[in-house]
Structures are given as C-alpha cells and as structure tokens.
C-alpha cells in the first residue's frame, strides 16, 4: 500500500495529479539516469580500465595472492622454462631461473622489489585459472593453487646467441619483429644471476654496480653515426626533388666557424653524393648537410620518431633526447648531425626506428608477452600485435630502405653482404664524451629473407671501437641464427 511506484500511482489517480507531479518524475528520471551512468562506468572500469591499476607495481594487493597461489612459470616462445617456482616437501618455495644470467634483465627477479617480466606480469603469475573444482579440492586439503604461466615472445636461441656474441663486453642487444612488434631477444651486460640475487643484493645493487640496469631499454647512449639515418631522412624531406644532386668533396675533414669535424681515421672519401656519403658514413659530408637543415623541421622529425617522449612499451625505458635551436652554435649543429652533440638514445628506440623503416613506415608497439595460460595450458589472455602509428610515409621508408641496403651491401656494414638473407643497416662509432677516447660500437638495422618474417636489431658494444668491427659481427651472428 505505502510503497507505491510513481507509475502505478499515476494510473490509480486522475490525470491532473500526474501533471502536478510531472516535475517530480523529471527529477526522478534525471537521477535514475545519473545512477545508470555511474553503474555503467563502474562496469566499464571493472572490464576495461581495472587492468592498468591491478598490474601497477604500486598495487600492494598483488602480493596477497601468493598466500594461496604458487607463482607460475615464465617461458620462452620456443618452450624453454625461464623462471619457475620449486616447492620443497615442507612447502618452502624457491624461485629458480634455469638460464641464470642469460635472461636476467628480460625476466627480472621477484625479490627485493621485483624487476622485468616478474614485475610486469606479477599479477598474472599469482592468479590461478585452475579448474574451479580443483581449486575447491585444494582448499579443502589446504594446498595452494598453481598460478598461471606467462609465455613470452622471447626466443631462446636468439637470446643465447646474442648473449654469447656480446661476450665479455658491456652493452646491449635487442631484437624485434617489425611486422608485429614482438621482442625476440633482449640482452644487457653487465648482468647478474637472478638465482642468487637476494644473497648478492649488496654487491649487485651497491655503489659502482650498474648490473641491475637494463641497458637495452633504459640505456642512454650517444647514437653516433646511426643517427645519420635521421639526418638523411630530414635532408630527403626538405629536398625531395633535388637530393640526388647533392655532392660533396671529402678530404677527410670539414671546418666551419672554427670547428673541425673529422672522418673516421681521417679517411678522405673524395667525391660523394648523398647515397655514398651515407654508405661511407662520411662525417665531413654530414656536418655539411646538417648546416643546411631547417632546425624546426629537424626537431619535428625527431619528435615524430619518438624522441623526447616515453616510448610505448610497458617495460621500464628511458626517454631519448634530441634538441637543436637556432641559438645553438654552428659547431653543435654539425656535431648533432653526425650523432654526437647532446642527443641520447636507447637501443630499444633505435631498434624501433629500424623496425619502422622495415615495416614501410608503420611502427608496431613492441611487446614481450604473447599470452598467459593456466598450468594445464588453457589460454587465459592473449596479447596481439598493435599498431602504434605511421611515423614515416611509405615513400620515405622505401627511400631509407634502399640507403640502408646500400650501406650493408657495399658500405661500412659490408660484412653483411653475400648472405642467404638481405641485410639493411647503419653502423656507428660513438664517442662517449669530448674528454675521453672511449667509443661505443653501434649497429642498427634489419634483415629480410623470403618466407620468413623480417627482424630488426640494435647492438651497442661499450668501450670497444669501430661499429664495423665490434657491433656488426654480433648482428651477423643473430641474423645467422634466425635465418638458419
């Protein structure tokens, strides 16, 4: 009786009373609408947005799950177990990493604050999608459920090859599939053994040690001559019809406003066009080119290729920096043009640029996890390739492809010629600073073979020497392992 619904009431009373209550109904419906929106948002949050918050490393609720779940395994794409939890008879759990140092930075560790995939995929590893009846039985027996496994995009063979090829040098190697964005290998040295990291924490994380630092994604290096890819692209953009008429006579050095830029080993390259300048990696010619560029547009190009912004990857990564303004001295413009100056990049970023060129101008968002599955192998979540955006026109991409092919066929990266695959790339030898003789060797490029997916690579070998000599052979070994 007392609980009358507005509608019902309207029926039982005369029409005037409905008109009298019209405004009350309007208010009722407005609030009803507000609440429907609120509940709709709540559902949307739970279904779509909550993942970002659940997976946040700040979310301390994640670790509560380890009370009832045995942490799942991390596997390579080709089926190798990279991390697993061993449960002893008395119930003590030990996290073990069968390939110890090889996957250290990619897989990470799950003690002392977590890193790598152990950090990024923490929540999935601690969730169990066992069959629910099995979970109830486990509960009754007071046994833990078994957490889900994370299957990565990492390829064991490539990772091991890259790890061995880098040898005793510090540096980084990162390999990805341009067509999908899958990261196939990620090596950083110096490294650490995740099996013993808790015991060795002091020495690994202490002063003077950079072993925890993932150079592949967080490293900030001067790009050296690999940056000529960007300088060349900018020159092409500004001179789309006349770039082929460019010519320069190289006598081994180039001087402007009192600053002299030397070619590697002061080698005189003689008469060059743009293509041979690129293939020879001629510093003099590029210092000359840099001075002709429109600096605003140069900045625009670099910004559109993800300089000065967070890279689209869920891994910890550094922001690459590039800036030039008309108030900078001409010497700095010349240095920047050949990849010295204030420019800093991460190997991941250079690999993404090579990948964009290879994939005809479209960057695929790099990712490391293929899918998660229950311990019985039932797929829980699948991560599919996502397009990040078109950073270069297909014309610019194919122009750069031909230049990088030339450099790998007859230029500085000529060692890669005559293989079963076609290589494209650019070497670099970057001076660490004006005051030291230390140089880092670089190679950035990709390789193609019919019938297989292309792969892009970036290699940095710290404190070594010429890119041709130290970085190219590593790329060569990785390509060989991949295309064998």
């Amino acid at each position, binding site marked *: 009786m007392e609980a009358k619904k507005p509608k019902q009431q309207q029926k039982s009373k005369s029409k005037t009373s409905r008109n009298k209550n019209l405004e009350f109904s309007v208010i009722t419906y407005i609030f009803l609408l507000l609440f429907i929106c609120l509940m709709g948002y709540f559902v949307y949050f739970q279904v779509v947005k909550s993942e970002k918050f659940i997976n946040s490393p700040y979310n301390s*609720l994640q670790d509560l799950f380890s009370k009832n779940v045995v942490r799942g395994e991390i596997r390579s794409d080709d089926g190798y177990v990279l991390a697993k939890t061993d449960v002893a008879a008395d119930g003590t759990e030990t996290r073990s990493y069968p390939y110890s140092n090889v996957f250290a930075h990619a897989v990470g560790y799950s003690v002392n604050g977590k890193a790598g995939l152990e950090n990024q995929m923490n929540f999935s590893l601690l969730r169990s999608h066992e069959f629910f009846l099995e979970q109830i039985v486990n509960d009754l027996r007071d046994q833990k459920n078994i957490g889900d496994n994370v299957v990565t995009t990492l390829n064991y063979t490539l990772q091991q090859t890259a790890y061995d090829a880098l040898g005793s040098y510090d540096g980084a190697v990162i390999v990805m599939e341009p067509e999908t964005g899958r990261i196939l290998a990620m090596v950083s040295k110096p490294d650490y053994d995740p099996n013993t990291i808790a015991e060795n924490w002091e020495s690994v994380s202490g002063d003077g040690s950079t072993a925890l630092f993932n150079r592949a994604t967080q490293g900030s290096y001067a790009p050296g001559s690999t940056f000529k890819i960007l300088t060349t692209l900018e020159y092409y953009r500004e001179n789309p019809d006349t770039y082929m008429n460019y010519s320069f006579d190289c006598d081994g050095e180039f001087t402007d406003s009192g600053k002299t830029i030397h070619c590697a080993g002061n080698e005189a390259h003689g008469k060059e066009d743009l293509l041979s300048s690129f293939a020879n990696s001629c510093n003099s010619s590029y210092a000359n080119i840099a001075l002709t560029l429109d600096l605003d547009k140069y900045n625009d190009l670099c910004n559109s290729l993800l300089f000065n912004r967070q890279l689209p990857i869920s891994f910890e990564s550094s922001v690459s920096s590039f800036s030039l303004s008309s108030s900078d001295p001409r010497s700095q413009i010349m240095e920047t043009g050949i990849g010295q100056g204030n420019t800093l990049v991460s190997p991941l970023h250079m690999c993404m640029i090579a990948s964009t060129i290879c994939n005809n101008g479209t960057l695929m968002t790099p990712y490391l996890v293929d899918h998660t599955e229950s311990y019985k192998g039932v797929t829980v979540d699948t991560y599919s390739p996502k397009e990040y955006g078109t950073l270069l026109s297909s014309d610019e991409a194919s122009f750069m492809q031909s230049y990088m092919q030339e450099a790998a066929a007859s230029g500085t990266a000529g060692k890669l010629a005559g293989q079963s695959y076609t290589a494209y790339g650019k070497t670099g030898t970057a001076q660490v600073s004006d005051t030291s003789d230390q140089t880092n060797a670089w190679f950035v490029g990709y390789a193609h073979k019919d019938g297989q997916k292309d792969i892009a690579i970036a290699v940095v070998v710290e404190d070594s020497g010429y890119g041709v000599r130290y970085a190219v052979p590593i790329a060569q070994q990785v390509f060989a392992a991949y295309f064998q």
Partner: protein
Amino acid sequence: MLHLVTQASKYLMILLFMVYTFECFHVFRFENRPKRQMAIYSRQRGIMYFIHFDAFLVIYLNTQNVQVIGFYLMQLILFIGIQLVYHLFYKKASELLLNNMLMLLAISLVILTRISFDKALKQFLIMIVSTVLSLLIPIILQKMTSFRRFTWAYALVGIAALSVVLVAGAVSYGAKLSISIAGISIQPSEFVKILYVFFIASMLYQATDMKQLLITSVIAAVHVLILVASKDLGSALLYFVTYLVMIYVATRRLAYFAGGLAACSLAAVAGYKLFSHVRVRVLAWKDPLSMIDKEGYQISQSLFAIGTGGWFGMGLCQGLPNKIPVVAQDFIFSAISEELGGIFALCLIMVCVSCFFMFLNIAMQMKDQFYKLVALGLGTVYAFQVFLTIGGVTKFIPSTGVTLPLVSYGGSSLLSTMILFGIIQGLYIMKSQQAIQPVTKNAEQKAKAKKPAKKKGEEKINGSKKTKAAAKVKVKDLSK
C-alpha cells in the same frame, strides 16, 4: 578450510544480496497484493539477517576475536529492536525503506568491524542514539504542525552553524569540515542540510513569485558561499543542486534548472582556472597513477582496491582496505567493493536508488506542498550525496570528499541520515493517516464494484474531461 568458508561466504553473500536488490524493485509488481508484498519484505529481512550473520562468522573465523561474537549479538538486538518498534507503533511506515535502512546499517557495521573494531564500536554507540532520536521523529511530525513557520529560524541556525565552522573549524584534507564541542567532533553541514531543505520548502510552498524566489536564492547562496569559503566543495555542490531541484519543482520552470546548471558549470571552470588546489585535484583525477606520490595516492589506492577485488571481491578480511586513507569515511565504498566484490557494490548502489525512489514516491503522494518539497529536497540531498561519494571513489567524477549515507563511519553523517529517514517515514505515516477515512470509504465502494467494472470506470474517467473533473471534486469532498 578457513579459506573455503571465506570464499564460499563471499559468493553466497553476493547471491543473496542480488536477490534482495531484485526484490527491492520486483515488489512493486504486487501493488495490489499486500500479502504477497509482506512475504517479500520478510524474505528481505531474512536475507539481511543472514548476510549479517555470515559476514560476522567470517570476520570471527579470520580474526579469532571473541569480542566480535558479543558485538554481533548486540547489533542483532538493535536491528530486531528497530524492527519491532516499527511493527508495533509505525505499522504504516514504508517496509521497504525500513529494510533498506537496516541493510545499509548492517553492511556498514560489517565493513567497519573488518576495518577497525574500535571504530565500529563507536559507530554502533552513535547508531543506538540515532535510532532512538529517529524513532521519535514520526511522532513529533504528527504532533507539531508548525514546521512550516520556522522559516527564518532554519536559515539563521544553518548559516550560524556553517559560519562557526568557517571561523573555528578544524582543517582536514585541506577543507574545514568540523568543530569540536566538549571533545566531540561535529560536522554541522550534515545537519544544516536538513534545515536548509526545510527553509527552502517553507519559503516556496506558499508562493513562488519573483520576490520570494530572490530571497530564497540569496539565503541559499549564503549557505553555498560559506561552504566554498570553507573549501568544503562537495557540500557546496550538494547544497547548490538541492536548491536548483527544489526551485525547479516549485516553479515548474525547466529554464531555472538549466540556467542553474549552466551557471554551475561556469563556476566550475572559473574555480579550475582560479584555484590551484582545484586544478591539482582535477589532474589527480585524470591520471592518478602519475601523481601517486601525493595527490593521486588516495584515489589510486581506491582503484587498486576496486580493481583487484574484481567482480567477486577478495573475501572479507582478505584485502588491504586500510591502505586507502580515510577508508572508513569517504572511501568505504572501495573497501566494500574490494572485499565483498564489484557485484555486491553494484547492488549497494541499487539499494540506494531504491531508497531514493521511496523518497520521491512519498513526495508525489503527499498533498501538502510543504511536505512534498521537504521530501523532494531530502531525496535530492540523499541521492546526490550517494552519487558524489561513489562517483568520486570510482574516479567517475573528481573526488569531493563526502560520506556514503548510513554506511560511512562518522557520527554526524549517521545521525543526520537517520533523522532524514525518520522524517520520510513520518511522512509515510502521516500520509496513510490523512487518507485513512476517505480511503476506507473509497475502498468499500470499490470493493462493491467488480474488478472488470472498475477498469471500465477508470477508462471512462480518463476518456472524458468532465467526469474527471467531477471525480476530482468528489475526492476533495471526501477528504474533508
């Protein structure tokens, strides 16, 4: 085993609460079958008592705190007591509203006990006091007919109380909300909002000419501006929206409502441009994770809780609700969603909506314009406050720091909401008593006529204007 009981209870409570919530709306299908309705209401109460029991069982098993058992029994006595008083003395009160109130109180005590036993105990003591007060209200409403004459007293007391907070209030989270009297912290804006509704209602029930509107608006603006000056933006917004709704309904002009909302938006934009603390709040709302060290911390923790809890929750005592700052007050909804589950939380929203329907229902049924406006105003206050707090903690809208009525920890909030529910129940009782004589006569007449005949009669009334007018006159005569 403990884990299993906790988890099984979790699903059971969700299921039962879904049934309860469904009945809140389903019961209206049986408008003409009071027996059927009574059966539904008593089933709802059964569910309420079971959820209350199950939750405390889980809390006891997880904490092994014997005090919890005694506390549970005390609560049980209170709930049964409230129910008995209503059934003995207030037979005409709304059963659904009574059930919803008990359900919300039970949920409040469950989650507060889980968060902090001491807080729950304190809240329970205030609940007893509030219950006694709110049970008296229907009688007072019946005996005193002069509520509409205190217009200026409402305004004066209200403005004075808010001013005291502005001048001497304690600052918490950047806003001045409360004053301390004899060691007890009181939040006057919680009580003033009831006076405020009574003030507007008593101004507008008699006349809605320009002069009357202007005076009302000025006094309302004084309230709102004092709250803005105290930086209590949530309450300021609540007061403003209540004013708009009441003006719109009393004048029946949508233009006032739309104009007010437009002015409100402009004020919001101006506030954003002028005040840095507003800007910071909006930024923290847009991307809380990027500001997690400071401004975004609270909302991030809230979203961790809601997100990680998921649809089914972590189970009582299985989460970390205390990670969220002021979880017992403003963020109680997040704790509920975290441990009892997203589905449970959605049902909770719908129970609040059901309460709001009952407020507006009585507003429409009352004949006296003063009480119509009072019920409308209180309904708006209630619904908008629920919307502000839940919208805030789920990041639907920027957080404004208001409590969830009946559920949040806090004496002022609980007492004022209990008074509010008491007033509405008083109106239900008043309504049924006013209608008793004519209605029984009507009912007799109707009972004589057979059902199909009655339907025909209704159609006729709707069909011809003249008969309708005649019928209206008849009804009026009867009510005299």
